[in-house]
């Protein structure tokens, strides 16, 4: 089971990448722990999370092929 994590805005600089694939993560909570292991600096930044293009505010189970995005505050316009 693999999910894709996308990084945006300042988080691209913080992590040094646009995305990373993670295997065998059961939930958003698990995923956040894995991400903070790989990129400890990330926890110092505010971001919201989307799952398959939908912003989520609570923990969710993950399944094969899910796309999760870590998004700092928007700055369009």
């Amino acid at each position, binding site marked *: 089971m693999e999910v894709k994590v*996308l990084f*945006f*805005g*300042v988080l*691209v*600089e913080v992590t040094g990448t646009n995305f990373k694939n993670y295997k065998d993560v059961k939930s958003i909570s698990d995923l956040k722990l894995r991400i903070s292991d790989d990129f400890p600096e990330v926890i110092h930044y505010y971001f919201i999370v*989307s799952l398959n*293009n*939908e912003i989520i505010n609570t923990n969710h189970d993950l399944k094969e092929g899910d796309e999760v*995005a870590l*998004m*700092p*505050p*928007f*700055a*369009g*316009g």
Partner: protein
Amino acid sequence: MLTNNLINGPVTQCLITLLIEQMGERTDIGGHSLFLGQVRTDEIDGKKVKAIEYSAYEEMVKVVVDNIKETLLSEFTDVRSIEIVHSTGMVMAGEISLLVLVSAGHRHQAMLACSKTVELIKERLPVWKREIFDDNSHRWNQNIHV
């Protein structure tokens, strides 16, 4: 090239003209309201912004734009069309980075809906900007809702 309401580089005069010309085919339209967002040379700590580099979550932009249009079209029943174009990549100071064109049967709803569309874009569109200064340093910026 336009992909999911995004254009690489600035919104050009050619594109603005083209979109307005296309609206001429809709004879049920009586007025357009056009908002153009332009890159401003802010001065921060003695350094001037010379450009903004935009990045976007392209797949989600499409979803959010569709949602914004649906919201506005149900609230403003006289509105016939909403066009949204946002830049990605580098846009120099003085160039246009956002276009919102709202067309309606009458002016009042065109202007109200255009204003609300811009506010929803600021609030919801997954776009990020990196301000590039005249000494080539940069900082990430975010919208402040006022």
